[in-house]
């Protein structure tokens, strides 16, 4: 067979091995059975034929001795058993019991033994099926007696036996394959658990653990896997704690710096150069403080602990609040369908207002200004689309910009912390929603926040 052979999977390999094993075993058993049965049956047939030939031969001898009759008469008077032919040679002349049977050349096999004066048994394949040839010398009347018995029944029996054994071997092979398949499934079942657990872990769920087992063969694997996940979990927690500790330690000094700097800002006796320097420090410190605030906020969001009790409110209401909180005109809000009630959502209000404010700020800094916020009621969900009129975000950057400290298209450090969109993403994710970036019809970017709506207008959260 030519062509590319695909690498066999473990299960197929095990199945094939079982099938081949079963085949080898059943075939050798079948062959052994066949040949020993055949040997036994053939011997039995020869014995039967010999006994019959001796009986018939004795009859012929007696007939020839007592009456002095001719061979042909004797042969005419005794009837050969069914499927048998009798040949007698006397004084070099052949006599046969049946005229339409095959000739005496059938007896060639044993003639030599008979001529030497002893009885002979042999097989001839001149007939179909094969036949047993028994030759007996009858010196008393100077004759040789031959009897050829066609082994019709023996052949049929052997054929039936061969077929039966063949079927058995085939069935055993199939059963072996089935057994292999089941066994491999059983053996691989724990591996499947490990696989799905590993997939969950790589998806970020580090709380995944394999169930404890008392199977000593699996305990080592389960233990090692769980230890590995524990180690990963610890490592992630340690990193997170480190980041939290660092930002925590920076909080008081940064506060002191901003407080002190606000004193300098108000000083009236500074030279223009000093005023400029104070301004530079103020700007940088503002950015530093924002980054720190965002880091702290992100740390809290990552921990997933709700900061406030969620409340039920309308999506349009939420957007209005966010616009108002960031001193933007309420007219930026539009909604679809135009005549409908405000879709209700369950949100931690301050967090979601902050997330929307981040998107507004992002539109201002990177998108040439916020052009509108559209609330689209989708039934089970509501989309809040924050649109700008900037250059848009290239498709390949659209998921990357949500990463921490990511900046689109080699853009220089802006006034943002580089964490704003990560905060948006984490906030929305904590609300079982989704956020993505797309393009606005007519140019610019649109950031879509999709949140699940609640069917109960009130009464979900206290």
């Amino acid at each position, binding site marked *: 067979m030519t062509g590319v052979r695909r690498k066999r999977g473990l299960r197929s390999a095990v199945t094939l091995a079982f099938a081949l094993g079963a085949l080898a075993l059943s075939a050798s058993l079948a062959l052994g059975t066949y040949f020993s049965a055949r040997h036994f049956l053939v011997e039995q047939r020869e014995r039967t034929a010999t006994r019959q030939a001796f009986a018939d031969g004795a009859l012929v001898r007696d007939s020839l001795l007592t009456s002095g009759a001719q061979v042909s008469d004797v042969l005419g008077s005794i009837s050969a058993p069914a499927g048998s032919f009798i040949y007698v040679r006397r004084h070099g002349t052949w006599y046969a019991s049946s005229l339409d049977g095959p000739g005496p050349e059938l007896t060639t096999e044993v003639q030599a033994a008979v001529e030497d004066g002893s009885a002979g048994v042999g097989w001839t394949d001149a007939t179909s099926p094969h036949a047993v040839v028994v030759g007996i010398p009858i010196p008393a009347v100077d004759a040789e007696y031959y009897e050829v018995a066609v082994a019709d029944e023996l052949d049929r029996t052997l054929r039936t036996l061969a077929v039966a054994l063949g079927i058995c071997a085939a069935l055993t092979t199939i059963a072996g394959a089935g057994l292999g398949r089941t066994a491999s499934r059983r053996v691989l079942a724990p591996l499947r658990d490990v696989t799905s657990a590993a997939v969950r872990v790589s998806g970020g769920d580090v709380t995944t653990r394999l169930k404890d087992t008392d199977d000593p063969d699996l305990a080592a694997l389960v233990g090692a896997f769980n230890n590995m996940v524990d180690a990963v979990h610890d490592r992630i927690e340690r990193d997170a704690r480190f980041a939290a500790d660092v930002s925590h330690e920076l909080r008081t000094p940064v506060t*002191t710096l901003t407080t002190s700097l606000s*004193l300098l800002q*108000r000083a009236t006796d500074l030279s223009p150069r000093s005023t400029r320097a104070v301004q530079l420090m103020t700007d940088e410190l503002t950015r530093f403080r924002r980054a720190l*605030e965002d880091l702290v906020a992100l740390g*809290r969001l990552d921990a997933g602990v709700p900061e406030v009790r969620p*409340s039920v409110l309308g999506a349009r209401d939420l957007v209005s609040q*966010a616009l108002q909180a960031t001193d933007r005109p309420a007219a930026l809000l539009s909604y679809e369908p135009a005549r409908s009630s405000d879709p209700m959502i369950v949100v931690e209000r301050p967090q979601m207002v902050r997330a929307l404010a981040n998107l507004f700020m992002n539109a201002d800094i990177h998108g040439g200004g916020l052009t509108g916020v559209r609330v689209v009621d989708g039934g089970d969900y509501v989309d809040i689309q924050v649109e700008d009129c900037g250059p848009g975000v290239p498709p390949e950057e659209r998921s990357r910009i949500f990463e921490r400290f990511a900046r689109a298209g080699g853009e220089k450090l802006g006034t943002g912390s580089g964490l704003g969109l990560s905060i948006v993403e984490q906030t929305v994710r904590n609300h079982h929603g989704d956020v993505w970036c797309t393009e606005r019809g007519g140019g610019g970017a649109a950031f879509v926040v999709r949140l699940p709506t609640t069917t109960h207008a009130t009464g979900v959260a206290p």
Partner: protein
Amino acid sequence: MVTRLLVLEDDDGLRSSLRMVLEDDGYEVAEAASAEDGLTALGRHGVDLMLVDLMLGGMDGFSFIQRARPQTEAPIVVISARDGVQDIVAALEAGADDYVTKPFVVDEIKARLRALLRRPSMGSSDTRGPEDALVLDSVAGPLVFDQGAGTLTRGSAEIHLTHTEFRLLGVLAENAGRVLSRSSLLEHVWDRGFFGDERIVDVHVRRLRKKLELEPSAPSTLITVRGLGYRLDVR
């Protein structure tokens, strides 16, 4: 009259920079680097408002608030690097009125101070005479809230409220029978915008209930309206 502030903060740099900035704004500022010093200063002068850090050497800020609260009705603003849910709620439960997490900008502190130092419902007290005292609960003994006089009494006993509790009750009483959302209470009482933390309202409502209600766990006067906010029922 000069407003007296106490800054309780163990970081020397932050404490003195805060003092300078606040003095520039015309406040009289006393400093304390430890809770013990803070309590001494409180006993000696009496203050109108306190800025309190939670993590201090020795006695911590929570204990300070617990001890200071019975001595004074003055607002307490927590300034802390700790912003865990439990820490904030614990500080509010202990008696703090508001909190600001570090890093903050001075303007934010000043805004908090201005909000908490407003005299309780000044506007309405001019138009209301003492006879406008509101009977909140006539069923379980007369519970009388007199905004003009600044008192809350059950029978002949006066119930002490902090400034902030008083203002919260004032806003609820002016809108008696109407549901007020947490965010509108935040705005009216604390001058907090849309980013404000609604737990401040919840904790203050709990504190107020302990003083108003005969059975705070089954309130009959200050009612929670699920999903909407709070309502004061006069009966």
